């Protein structure tokens, strides 16, 4: 096995939060003997992991779990209390895009400054400038001062510098939260490319779909230690579980119960009879019965089917359903059924999850249940992949001989 690209052993980091900050000389002079008392905040409490060269490694965790501190220790910005951090190759941190950008300078000057801060030497930075401008799609604007750029253009420029920095190990913190959709897609393409190119990447994010899409492995931090490390789907699911459990828990403290709850979810056949197994390819429906405990405006019920690893294969919402009322009154129930007309799910056991959302934007989650019912799809296709589309096989033999090239 090759040497790991990043090796972290028993990493500890504590911040001292003084009760009374002695930060002026006068206080020091007047109270020379008073030791400032402080709380020790153990932000990182014994972190161990290794990242292999070429691995795309995700780091997830809630705010305050220590992931930013871990990143800053890894980036060499903070000094660790104890432990080892060994990085093989050149490391470039991207904790924020466009660090050191100066609005009075042109793109050209900013690119050089930003790249040199990242450890690229000035000559290389100038050589790569054309690539950077091309990637950022800035063409004719290169000699414009940065302050005349739109924020989207600034982000594109910053991201382009990052891509061209050519570091062996990249630390990336939530950089994709910015930019328009087209550029985000481009960033995703770059991530694929970097992954293919065998770059070692550590990505810190809240976005579980990113983790599942790109990462080979992921770790989840909780209160300064590693809660879970392993395959991205498992880590992602655990993250959602912990997050929602705690959100709901908080709501229970403030109000007695969430505004609405999921009474029941079930599978049914096309006629509405409850079933626990469906022949492969036959239409069936997923259903939920929800109850409002207080008025819920713009209720939206989301139902999804996932496999045993939590990967969703199908998801739909009640949006567009003619009988969904604009407001659900307290005590009112709502039954939602979504009929899958031509299901292609492969033969396997499938699980049903449900979320209640509210508000016209449909992003405010009231409550959520995962794996609340299951169904067995049976039929001819063995469960090797989530989709079981009907197919037939064609084959023909041929000769490997080709016409000689003249």
């Amino acid at each position, binding site marked *: 096995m090759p*040497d790991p690209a990043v090796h972290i052993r028993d*990493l500890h980091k504590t*911040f001292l939060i003084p009760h009374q900050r002695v*930060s*002026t*000389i*006068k206080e*020091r002079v007047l109270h020379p003997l008073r030791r400032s008392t402080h709380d020790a905040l153990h932000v990182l409490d014994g972190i161990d992991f290794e990242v292999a060269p070429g691995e795309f490694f995700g780091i997830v965790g809630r705010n305050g779990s220590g992931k930013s501190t871990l990143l*800053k*220790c*890894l*980036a*060499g*910005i*903070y*000094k*660790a209390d*104890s*432990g*080892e*951090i*060994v*990085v*093989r*190759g*050149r*490391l470039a*941190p991207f*904790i*924020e895009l466009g*660090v*050191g950008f*100066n609005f*009075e*300078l042109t793109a050209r*000057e900013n690119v*050089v*400054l930003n790249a*040199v*801060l*990242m*450890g690229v*030497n*000035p000559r290389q930075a100038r050589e790569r400038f054309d690539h950077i401008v091309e990637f950022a799609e800035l063409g004719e604007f290169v000699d414009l001062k940065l302050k005349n750029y739109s924020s989207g253009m600034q982000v594109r420029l910053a991201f382009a510098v990052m891509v061209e920095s050519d570091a*062996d190990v990249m630390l990336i913190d939530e950089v994709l939260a910015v930019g328009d959709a087209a550029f985000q897609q481009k960033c995703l393409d770059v991530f694929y490319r970097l992954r293919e190119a065998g770059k070692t990447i550590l990505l810190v994010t809240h976005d579980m779909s990113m983790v599942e899409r790109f990462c080979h492995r992921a770790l989840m931090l909780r209160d300064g230690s590693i809660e879970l490390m392993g395959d991205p789907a498992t880590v992602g699911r655990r993250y959602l579980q912990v997050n929602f459990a705690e959100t709901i828990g908080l709501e229970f403290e403030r109000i007695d119960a969430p505004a609405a709850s999921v009474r029941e979810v079930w599978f049914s056949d096309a006629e509405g009879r409850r079933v626990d197994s469906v022949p492969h390819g036959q239409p069936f429906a997923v259903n939920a019965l929800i109850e409002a405990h207080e008025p819920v405006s713009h209720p939206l019920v989301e139902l999804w089917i996932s496999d045993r690893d939590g990967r969703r294969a199908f998801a739909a919402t009640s949006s567009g359903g003619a009988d969904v009322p604009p407001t659900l009154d307290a005590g009112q129930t709502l039954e939602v059924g979504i009929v899958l007309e031509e299901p292609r799910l492969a033969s396997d056991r499938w699980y049903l999850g449900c979320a209640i959302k509210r508000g016209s934007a449909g992003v405010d989650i009231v409550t959520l249940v995962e794996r609340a019912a299951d169904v067995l799809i049976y039929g001819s296709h063995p469960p090797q992949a989530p989709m079981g589309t009907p197919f037939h096989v064609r084959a023909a033999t041929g000769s490997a001989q080709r016409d000689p090239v003249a």
Partner: protein
Amino acid sequence: MSTVATDLSAGPSAFSRDWRRLSSLSWLLARTKFRIAYFNSVLGPLWSVMRPLMLFAVLYVVFTQIVDFGGDIPNYPVLLLMNMVLFTFFTEATGQAVGSLVENEGLVRKMFFPRAAIPFSTVLTSCLNLGVNLVVVFAFVLAYGVDPTWTWLLLPLILAPLILFTTGVGMLLSALYVRYRDISPIWSVASTMLFYGTPVLYVVSTAPERFQRYLLFNPIAALLEQARHWIIDPTAPGTFEAIGGWPWILVPVAIWLGAIVVGTWVFNREAPWIAERL
């Protein structure tokens, strides 16, 4: 592909072993700052020439026409200009250095780079100003009728120690300011005191005889006195003579060296913690 293993648990260093990176970064930051200083002004970079010219006009009128401060000091107006330019370099660079780490918080908290690049770059920016100013100084020195001598070539022997001293003090102040925000007002008062305590407007020999030696304990005073001897007035005593030779000369040298060593030591000790204390 380089697969050098680096241990990062020690946090950011002040200087790092990669001197090329430190120097190119310091230089780039300094140049940026120098260029930005005159943006949006009508005269632009011309101001770096205009400022010493205007300074000279004021000094000339006040100290030679209104109060006859110079008395019989030879070439007093140009001596005054040179002293002001050299001394202003020191106060400007150190004054900027005090808050430099805090002002560049965005860089320090988000990037890993040798921390000394920040105070170095402020000193370098002042060096660029100094360079322009010195051209003006020499233009006036010639215009005033001072004969060029070979000792003008020794100017770097004044500038190099001055820049090193300024860098040492700048590092000390910037690192301490992260912990103690009192440094800023203290230093602005200290700079003013130092201005009057240093023979800038006057020369050492105008001070009472028993104080002369002590005035020259100040490394800046020692350098100004030597610059006067080499550039403006070869008949004036050099620092070595004025201070009384051995062993007195060792005092300003020790203070000079001490400032550099302490500044470097303190900055180096504080460097790993700067990001989290800002």
